[in-house]
């Protein structure tokens, strides 16, 4: 019994921080200064629920920020970004896997100077025996939510909420007169 207990303690106390999560990763580089490829197993969590106990049955169905509690070391990784180069986050990608164990592959950002630690761009997700899927569903979900915004150009030029705010506050957010002055001086 003592030997088994010793082994258990050794397992718990193992220096998992030294583990290289880049092993086996097929993450594509974004040429970011602080990126580190990282593939790991984790439990998908609603961060607000995880930290405060303020929970919803479906992790907010994409409306709340999502995290990944890594199996190897119980570290909470904040999933900030999906794989689309389109100003899009990761919540819509991960919410369908609420409270499930998945594997993820992507890029970790570690920048001590800025305080970036355990923040993540998720590129692929694998649930149980299913195949890997790309974390790139955000724009399709946006298009389904805003059918009236259908048209040419990227979503962020057509989004009704963004257009409304810019229409009032301007691109600089300082009012339309400031925008006019800026345009006159720069175009």
């Amino acid at each position, binding site marked *: 019994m003592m030997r088994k*207990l010793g082994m258990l303690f050794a397992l718990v106390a193992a220096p998992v921080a030294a583990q290289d999560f880049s092993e086996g990763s097929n993450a594509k580089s974004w040429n970011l200064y602080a990126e580190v490829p990282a593939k790991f197993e984790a439990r998908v969590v609603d961060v607000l629920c995880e930290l405060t106990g303020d929970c*919803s049955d479906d992790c907010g169905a994409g409306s709340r920020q999502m995290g990944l509690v890594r199996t190897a070391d119980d570290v909470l990784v904040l999933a900030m970004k999906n794989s689309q180069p389109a100003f899009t986050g990761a919540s819509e990608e991960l919410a369908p896997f609420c409270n499930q164990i998945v594997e993820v592959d992507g890029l970790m950002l570690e920048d001590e100077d800025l305080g970036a630690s*355990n923040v993540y761009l998720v590129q692929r997700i694998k649930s149980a025996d299913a195949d890997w899927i790309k974390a790139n569903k955000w724009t399709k979900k946006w298009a389904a939510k805003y059918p009236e915004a259908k048209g040419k150009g990227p979503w962020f030029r057509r989004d009704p909420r963004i257009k409304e705010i810019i229409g009032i506050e301007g691109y600089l957010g300082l009012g339309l007169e400031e925008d006019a002055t800026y345009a006159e001086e720069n175009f």
Partner: protein
Amino acid sequence: MRLTLSLLLTSLALPGWASEGTRVQVTGEIIDTWCYYSGVMGGPDAVVGSAHHTCALWCSAGGIPVGLLAEDGTVYMVLKIAQDDASASGDTQLSLAAHTVTADGMLYERDGQNYIVVNEVVSDADIENRTHEDYGTIPSFSFPEPK
């Protein structure tokens, strides 16, 4: 010994780290955390304020976490503002993009990140950081050429 092992296994099986948090009041700017942390658009001084207002709207509406960048440089990831728990693409946070605010709330620290649940936005000074005067707009295409 059985009791010790049982307690150890029980502690390992506890779900989540839910805790009380610490009451804080923070003054700072509501920022786009991806551009700030990743450097994808340039240095941290350029991806805040008026220069980055439109991009901050895009990222907030796109579901990227917004942060509260305090005067001492600490970033607090915003998980809720008053009754609005939509921290991904929510209306309240979208309306505060690039604004300087004072927020009263609860701080939760875990694994190198600071998370804040804002009980109340005590003051909202709108956009104070006129970074476009030094950097133009970041990215430059966020302000389209007038037709």
